[in-house]
């Protein structure tokens, strides 16, 4: 017999996934506003930010209610703690998408600095990290969560690469400083999105295996 509580936990996961898909879409649209020079995509991201914020409050309320009324233990408790933390990370991903969308609007007022090669790769990587971390949660898949952790370095490397490249453009032609600087901000925001996906993956490992893999250098005897 399925218990009412389990049904509520499933529903909570579904709502978190929906929030995740809103955040992921916002990132995709914001980056494509830059890549495809489509300013209306930026406007969409700004208009849809409230939906993500509303989801954050809804999920928090659901977690509070489930904790207060069911006093969960073991895996149920770990799931609720993980969802509560992931909720915060998804909301921040929504904020990073808004930052990118605003940068996009400023970038589009200037001629394109350079052909976009690393930026779409970085965006694909970061979006896939968010998607896979949430899939890992739903499937209880520790290996998938671990693979997200491993990918964070690639995103960081692309950010450094982009930064160096854009710096040379800025030094060569001061007229490009403004747009190049905004592109650096976009890269910085994508790198932060990768960090949030990493946080989500760490929370998934905590939920699935009960292991806290944050800050591995710390002594946790």
């Amino acid at each position, binding site marked *: 017999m399925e218990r009412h509580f389990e049904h509520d936990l499933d529903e909570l996961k579904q709502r978190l996934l929906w929030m995740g898909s809103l955040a992921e879409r916002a990132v995709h649209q914001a980056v494509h506003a830059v890549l495809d020079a489509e300013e209306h995509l930026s406007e969409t991201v700004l208009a849809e930010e409230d939906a993500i914020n509303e989801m954050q409050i809804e999920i928090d309320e659901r977690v509070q209610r489930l904790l207060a009324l069911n006093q969960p233990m073991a895996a149920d*408790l*770990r799931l609720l703690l993980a969802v509560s933390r992931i909720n915060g990370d998804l909301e921040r991903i929504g904020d990073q998408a808004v930052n990118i969308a605003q940068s996009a609007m400023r970038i589009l007022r200037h001629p394109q600095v350079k052909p976009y090669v690393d930026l779409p790769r970085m965006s694909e990587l970061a979006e896939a990290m968010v998607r896979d971390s949430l899939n890992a949660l739903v499937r209880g898949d520790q290996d998938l969560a671990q693979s997200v952790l491993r990918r964070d370095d690639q995103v960081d490397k692309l950010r450094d690469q982009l930064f160096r490249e854009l710096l040379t453009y800025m030094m060569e032609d001061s007229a490009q400083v403004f747009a190049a600087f905004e592109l650096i901000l976009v890269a910085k925001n994508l790198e932060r999105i990768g960090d949030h996906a990493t946080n989500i993956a760490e929370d998934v490992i905590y939920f699935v295996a009960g292991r806290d893999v944050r800050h591995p250098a710390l002594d946790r005897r």
Partner: protein
Amino acid sequence: MDSVSGVPQPALSVKPFRDPVHMEKTTTQPTEQSIRLEIADLNFFYGPKQAVFGLNLKIPTHKVTALIGPSGCGKSTFLRTLNRMNETIRNTRVEGKVLLDGQEIHQMDVVGLRRRVGMVFQRPNPFPKSIYENVAYGLRVNGFKGRLDELVEKSLRRAALWEEVKDVLKRSAFALSGGQQQRLCIARALAVDPEVLLLDEPCSALDPVTTAKIEELMFQLKDSCTMAIVTHNMQQAARASDFTAFMLDGKLIEHSVTSKLFTTPTDPRTEAYITGRFG
């Protein structure tokens, strides 16, 4: 002199920050030197039926150990073996070792053992006597010759009952509420200054406010007493105990620090039981 452009610079403090609230890290198992009761290969039989199977457990000094598990899993039977209370039931048999401070309890005088290992039951069972006499009774039986009044007051204070009954000590114990009766039974058990207190579902007949009082009392008693509590209420085990043992079908399945057992249990059967997905 350290200086930048000739201006003397104040030395930077290199003192490390100290955590003002230093928290000791807890281990997941009781340490060797602090064991009050050690149970080894314990088997218990009601006639031909075995109720406890090869149980090994260490109960650490000045800590609360909770025993949880579904009805009929043998946790109350096990608790009663710790002060040989099962011997009052006919046709029962016990095998294995129970060491109290290293001494085998089956070789001790049973009255002396029960003075050292007190017990509180599910339903408060005060004697049909006054509040005072309920506490004094155990002392008299044990031949206590000192100042009885002082010890009765001390025991009632330790059981957090003194303030409520100090003016009605001659009144019948049955005039007290259920929660007060249970604390009176605890005061009665404490009067002979036991080293171990066994509590068999002490709050199952009490309301939440009274339950909270008993749990607070257990917390305070830890300074002077080692406790083992059988409870069906997992929130109570989580709140009130330092270590938790999960039993199933007469066997010990898992024993660890309470916070570990209720957040990251090792055995899937423990997980299933504490999350209510049992069976």
